[in-house]
Structures are given as C-alpha cells and as structure tokens.
C-alpha cells in the first residue's frame, strides 16, 4: 500500500518529536546496558594490570558467578528482602492504609500525611536517622523503648540486620503502596459493595470475593513496580549496614557495588549486574503475563 504524502509527513514529524527522548534513552539507558553486557565478558578493572590492558575473557565471569558463594548469598538476601519488605510489608500495610483511608476516620488527613512523610526524607538521610534509632547502647531509641518494658537492649543492626533493613524499607515504601492501592480501590464502584452487603455478605467475604479480585490488576502492577525497585535499593542499605555484618544484608545492588568499587573488578561486577537485570526482566515479563495486559 502506498502511503500518502500526509502520512509520511506525520511520520516524520512524530520521529522528530520523539527523537530527543529516543536519543536520551539510547545515551543513558540502552548504551550503558549494552556496555555493561560487553564489560561482563572482559576482565576490566579499576586498578592493576587489567586496568591498563583489559582482555576478553568470554564466559569466565559468569562461570565464576556459579561458584561464588557470596553471589548466591546476595541472591538469597535479595529474595528475602524483596519478599519481606515489598511483597509482605509494604503491600499489607499499604493495603490496610488504603482501606482505612476510604472510611470516614477522625484525623484522616493527619494519618495520610504521616504515611507519606517517609518519602520526604532522602534515602541516605533516612538511613542515618534509623541508625540512631537502632544503634547499640542505652541511648538509642529502640533500646530505650525495650528497656522501658524491662527487656535487654541490643545493637539491632548487628543482632537482627536483615529484619531491620526490611522494617526500614517497609516504612519507606508504604506510601507508594498506599497511593497505588487507593487508586485501585477507588475504581471499584460503591454499588458493588452495597449489593454485596444487601445480599448478606460479611466484611471478610466482601474483601475476599470482591475487593481483592477487582483490585488484582492494580495489585499486580504494584508488585511489579515494587519488586523491581526493591531489587535496586542501594542507598538505604548502604547507609544502614553497608551489606554487613558478614554479608547478612548484602543485597545484590550492594554486592555489585562491592565487586565493582571495593574490589575494583568492573568486569565481574558487570556480570552480576547483568544477572540482576535479567532477574528484573523475568519478573517484569512474569507479572505482565499474569496481568494479561499490554504495558
């Protein structure tokens, strides 16, 4: 089919309009990603002889990954971190907040402001604030609280490091969950709930049979965003524990940083980053398939 002059002109205009975004996308997303893949096949380093003369090492970095216990540990820690903070913590608390905010609560605006507040603090600032609350010694906030109840204080980031970073990340992410889930809830017509109540459904039945199924697309979208963004969390964990003690909180982003900028092994760090990228992509595809919608 021959395209008309008008269609060609529109196509050219569209390309012109899109080209700045396209160029930025290529320069800052696609090129670095492709370059990372290339780096992962080399022994590129920031220091030593490999910095002067990097060479192609094929799949050696990937083969090293398979036998690297610290890498597998970081995957496990990342999995627990994502499940604990994004899937369970943020989602459950975000959903409860969203449901509560639909009701005519006293101090409703104050409540929503409190939930939104953690997002106002930059990641690293929030991290240091939590360090002061979770530190060892009798002056730390949490230690004071447990001492008030006659319990022994501890250094929380040392004794329960993974639990603590899950708590902190949950605290920080509730607002996003709440906003998304509130939007999802508001799309369900009130008449549906009224009809269910008139048919004698109790609150639990309404929640299980109506609210949850109708909110499923929003929930899956939230899960996608939250899981991928939690895999990429770096600043908060770095400020709190730097991946310690003993790798107990070494999530994959920290592991990539440690390999690339502490051990200065850019090639190996890039290989880990590529694996993280693949995991995020697989997660994304799985969620999109589950949603059965085009994103």
């Amino acid at each position, binding site marked *: 089919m021959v395209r008309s002059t008008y269609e060609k002109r529109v196509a050219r205009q569209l390309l012109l309009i899109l080209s700045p975004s396209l160029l930025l996308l290529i320069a800052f997303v696609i090129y670095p990603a492709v370059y990372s893949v290339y780096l992962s096949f080399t022994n590129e*380093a*920031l*220091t*030593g*002889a490999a*910095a*002067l003369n990097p060479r192609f090492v094929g799949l050696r970095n990937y083969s*090293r990954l398979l036998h*690297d216990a610290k890498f597998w540990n970081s995957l496990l820690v990342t999995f627990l971190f994502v499940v604990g903070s994004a899937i369970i913590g943020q989602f459950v608390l975000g959903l409860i907040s969203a449901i509560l905010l639909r009701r005519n609560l006293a101090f409703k605006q104050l409540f929503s402001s409190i939930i939104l507040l953690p997002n106002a603090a930059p990641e690293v600032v929030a991290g240091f604030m939590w*360090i002061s609350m979770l530190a*060892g010694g009798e002056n730390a906030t949490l230690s004071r609280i447990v001492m008030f109840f006659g319990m022994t204080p501890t*250094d929380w*980031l*040392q004794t329960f490091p993974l639990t603590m970073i899950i708590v902190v990340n949950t605290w920080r992410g509730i607002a996003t969950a709440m906003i998304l889930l509130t939007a999802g809830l508001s799309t369900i017509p009130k008449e549906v709930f009224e009809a269910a109540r008139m048919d004698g459904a109790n609150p639990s039945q309404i929640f299980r049979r109506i609210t949850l199924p109708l909110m499923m697309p929003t929930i899956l979208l939230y899960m996608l965003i939250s899981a991928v963004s939690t895999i990429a969390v770096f600043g908060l964990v770095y400020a*709190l*524990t*730097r991946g*310690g*003690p*003993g790798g107990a909180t070494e999530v994959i982003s920290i592991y990539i940083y440690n390999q690339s*900028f*502490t*051990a*200065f*092994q850019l090639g190996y760090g890039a290989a880990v980053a590529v694996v993280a990228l693949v995991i995020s992509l697989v997660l994304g595809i799985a969620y999109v398939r589950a949603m059965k919608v085009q994103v």
Partner: protein
Amino acid sequence: MNKTVLVGLCAVTLSAFATLAQAETIRIANHGQAGINAMKSTVARIEKKYGVTVEVVEYPSPDKDYMTKLLTELGAGNAPDIFSAPTTAYVADMVAAGYLAPIGAEFKAWDGYASFYDVAKQLAVSPDGETYVMPFMLGIQEIYFRRDVLEKAGISTEQPKDWSDLLKRAAEIKEKTGAYGLLFPAGVSWGTGAFDEGFQHLLVGSKTPQLATEDGKLDLTGEGVKDVFGVYKELIDKDLMPTQPLLGPEPWVIPKYQMFPEGKLAATTCGSWCYIFDWGRESKNPIPDVEKAVGTWTIPGQAGGQYVLANLAAPWGVNAKAENLELAKKVLMEIGSVETQVSYAAEIGNIPASKAAAQDQAFQKLTELVPIHAAAENGVYLKQAAGFATVAEGVARATEALLRKETDAAGAQTILVDYAREILGDDAVK
C-alpha cells in the same frame, strides 16, 4: 576621550586574557579536613614559587570512598595531576594500571632525598625497581596498653617476648580485670585496616615474613600466614578481643573511642596519632595524663624479637596523564619538604619520613611523636607487589569469617588464597 577609554579597556582585557592563558593550574586531590589543613601553607608556597594556581579538589573522607572516586577518575582519564594513596598497599596496583608517572630520577636528584629514612625510600620502590611515589610520611603502629589498668591489677607491663607471651598477657588481663585483653583490627568494615593495622604487623615477625616473591608473585600459602590467623582465632575464641563491634559499619568507634578510654579494652594496635587524636589532647574522649596512663609495646615476633613495621602513609604521586608532568613533579617535591611533613604530623599524627624533621622546631613540639620518629630508623617493611590491595581485602574477608566463628586458621588462609586467586588470577598467586 571615548577612544582613549576604549583602547584602555581593550588593553586591560587583552592583558587579563594573556595572564589567564599563562597561569597554569595544578590540580591536587586531597581528602579529610585535616589533610586539607596540613597542605594550606604548602599550597601557598607552591603558588608563590612556581607562579601557578593550585586547585585543591576535595574528595570523600573515608579511604575506601576516596579510592573508589579517585580510581574511577583515573580510569576515565580526568583525575587531578597530583594525588595520594591511603597506604602503600595500593601503589603497586596503581603502577600496574599505568596511573602513576615515574619520579625516581627527580626524587634522587632532589636536595631532600638523602635525609629520608632508608625504610621510606625502600617502601617507595615498586616491584619494577622504579620509584613512583613521594614517601613523605610513615605510618608506624605499635600495641598501646592501659598501663594504669594493668598495674592496678598487678599484671606485668614488660614488653611481651613473643606471640605466646602476648596471648598469655591478654588472657591474664581478661582474667584479672574482666577487660578485653587485646585488639587487632579485623573484618570487612574496617577496610584495609584489617591488613594495615593488624595482620601485617604479626606477619613480619612470623616464620614467613614476606608475601612478595622474587618473581613478583604473591605467596599466601606460607606457614606464617596461617599462624597469624591462628593468633586472631585464639583471641576471638577465648573472648580476649571484642568481636561484635567489629562487625558494624564503623568498627573502630566502640573499641577505640569508648572501650579503651573506659578501660574495658586494655590493649590495642594503634598508630602514632593515637596519643594525640584518639585519647590525647585532640580527642573528644581523652584519657587523663595519657602518656603515663597508656604505654606502648612493639609487636613481638612469633619466636621472639621486636618489630617496628613501617608503612607509607598517604604516599603522593603524579598522574601519568598530567598535562605538565615536569611542573607536577616539581610540585611533588615541594609536598615532600620537611615543612609539609611536619604540618601533616601536627594535623594527622603520622611520622615524617625525613630524618631532618628531628631538627625542626615545630616537630620538636610534637613530643608524643619525637620518640616514634627516632624508632623509624630500625623500621622493617613488607616488600611490595601488585595485588596487595586485593590481599588487604582478602585478609578483611578471612578475619571476618574468624570473627563470625565460621572457620579456623587454615580455613581463613584458604579464604584469603581463594579470594586473591579469584581476583588476580592463578598466575599472580603462588
């Protein structure tokens, strides 16, 4: 009239441009306020002497973050003209990466060269036989102990004869005072400190005192390496050394700044700066009459002998890609002057590498450092090889496993060897 004003303005503008074009700028990397303060008078002197503008580029303070930023910039080709490395351990790798310009000829021809301690000159020589750094300060560490605490408990304050004696003393301290007996820095959070401030001091007195072989490889399988980890193992297993704080993000804070001043830790390795900054006149938590209350032991050898291990503190080098290499090297020699060394000693507490500092009036006022400066004459050192930074990280990982009681001395050595082989390749590690 208007014409005259116009011509005048043009002349002034041209002159300004000409001046700007002539005034060269030398960029110097520095990190930490104390380091920047120490260089202030040197910067002014350089600007006056060479008619250049010196731009001091401030970097993040912690050594690890500093090195990350510096190496990234060196890799990208936009690093400053002159910079320092935190310790000797980084130098050989930076040389191998081609980041440092050779300065051997200029250093040897320089007036100040002859007065440097031999140990400083030797530490500055890279495995290829060339000198790439100005060894202007020495880091000298010893064991600092609470003399007052030991004397009160009736424990000997004599210099321990060997490792066994040192460990017995630590056990006696724990038994009689309840305080931890001895701390050697360990674990990943302490960064290169696990190697620089702990491991290597024991290693030089062990059965296999060097890591670098004649052919430039690293020999990490020596018996001495395992024995050093054995000392850590005994300290940790017998609860003679605090372990929990060492697993946190700033592991030195609790043991050195809280436990030691409170007498809950009776002995620790520390550098010459500790008398001034950690527990002395510049400390936030000073120990009263610190020079009497706190004594020092040199680090004993495995089977006897005493070892004063010297390390280069902040060795300075010239960027191989500096625009004006000749000028940058001249500036480097100014940084090596006794005046700058003494300024650093006052601000940071390290030891000047020049013997001539002993005659400097300003240095004589730093009474805590004068005897340590004299002791540098007998300093010993670890021969350098490419891969030392990796070894330092490997030691940190191995000692962390010991802290977490996940392994024994042989297992810790395996962690170190495996890590070094993994990073450096089998060819670099014997």
